[in-house]
């Protein structure tokens, strides 16, 4: 992670005392008034260190050492409440992290993409280190008409390519969105599949095909 990015975001979080306020607001919406105790980041850190053990691909360090975006977004659990200035900085910093395919090869095989979209395995403490991860797209998105078991945390992507076409702009944006969702929407719920090494470049090509290939069932 680049140092400038870290510094910029840490400064931002410190700047926005609204961070704690945002938490309090969310809590007040529920039935959670009454807890006025102050707990510090160090308290949370100590609790995490004493409670968890690294296992398989899920490490204590991976949770303890939040990057600047994770840190900032923990202050604003409600994405619609992230101040515009903070969001802009998160997005700009994340956009710099997107790696576009060096060989200019953007679109793979939609059939492989469909398998990746269905597969929810990977990165859990019960999984092997270095195994092949899924993208688990259907957990949150509608994609094809045939798969009716889909979640709704993300928008429907049915007819994604048919509605948008496959101009260079659309292709580049889609790649970037899969690589690092936060580059286009700060504190997105969607994992940063490329940046965090969840999917390989080839897997992303295949998911791109599922979304953009006119022959893909997504675009029927």
């Amino acid at each position: 992670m680049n140092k400038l990015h870290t510094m910029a975001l840490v400064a931002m979080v410190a700047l926005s005392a609204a961070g704690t306020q945002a938490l309090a607001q969310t809590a007040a919406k529920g039935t959670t008034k009454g807890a006025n105790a102050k707990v510090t980041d160090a308290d949370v850190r100590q609790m995490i260190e004493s409670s968890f053990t690294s296992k398989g691909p899920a490490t204590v360090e991976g949770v303890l050492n939040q990057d600047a975006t994770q840190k900032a977004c923990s202050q604003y659990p409600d994405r619609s409440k992230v101040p515009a200035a903070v969001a802009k900085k998160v997005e700009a910093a994340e956009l710099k992290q997107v790696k576009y395919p060096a060989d200019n090869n953007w679109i793979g095989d939609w059939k492989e993409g469909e398998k990746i979209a269905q597969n929810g395995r990977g990165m859990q403490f019960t999984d092997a280190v270095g195994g092949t991860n899924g993208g688990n797209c259907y957990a949150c998105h509608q994609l094809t008409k045939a798969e009716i078991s889909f979640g709704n945390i993300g928008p429907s992507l049915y007819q994604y390519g048919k509605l948008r076409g496959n101009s260079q702009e659309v292709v580049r944006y889609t790649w970037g969105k899969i690589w690092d969702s936060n580059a286009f929407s700060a504190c997105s719920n969607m994992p940063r599949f490329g940046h965090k090494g969840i999917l390989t470049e080839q897997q992303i090509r295949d998911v791109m095909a599922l979304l953009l290939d006119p022959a893909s069932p997504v675009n029927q």
Partner: protein
Amino acid sequence: MVSPRNTRRNTRCSPRRMYRAAPAILAVAAAVTAIATTLSAPALAQGSTAEELAKYRQMLAEGNPAELWEAAGEELWKKPAGPKNVSLEQCDLGKGPGVTKGAYAELPRYFKDTNKVMDLEQRLAYCRVTLQGLTQEEATKNPFSSQGKPSDIERLAAYLTGESRGVKMNVQLTHPEEKRVYALGQKMFFYRGGAYDFACATCHAVDGQRIRLQDLPNLLTSKGAEAAYTTWPAYRVSQGEVRTMQHRLYDCLRQQRFPEPAYGSDVITALTMFLAKNANGGTYDGPNMKR
């Protein structure tokens, strides 16, 4: 409203009666498992999972298999055991030694003797150590059953939670330590980290959301927190086991791509405190039954 199940429980005289009912209950459980299997077929999956579950519950109104766990747990609770060969009956779950009725609905809470906020299962382990003379390691062994390895802890938890059935959740933040643990749980709920950047809030802070077809409760609202918290532990039809709140959170953290939480660790108690307090006012209705 008094459900038929509550009435039956109140009139039941001994655990032995429960065992006589066992074959019937197990037959129903088998039928439910069969239905659960067919239910995963796409054609049926179109209906809301919640609706289908409501149907199971109605069908099983006369016999949730969890009652077998409750009965076995009651026996374990009352049977002298451990190096000291005493029962757990004098365990203080917060309402005084020996009081089990309604104790779970007030947990987690601060305990003076340990100077700590404890959830049910931490307290249970404490009693097994202090009363029965087990080591901490023995008292926390095999918290989640697996094939051929039934868990005493799940059975004891089923019994003790069942002792609060019909009681309104009433978790207090009076002691400064209770306030602190709640605040830690709240902070943890929103804490994003790991490979997927997930927090609990990623899936549980908005109404009407689903993973695939699984409905996700909004745990920040009293409605969502009540519905979720008051129905654990639960007999999991898909697993054929009663799973506890400790197990539920363990499995959530696994799916969150967080590392493995230790059984009875402080992060589980903090999250439990946050959820239990948010569920205050809801009528406790566990051990329940779930997919």
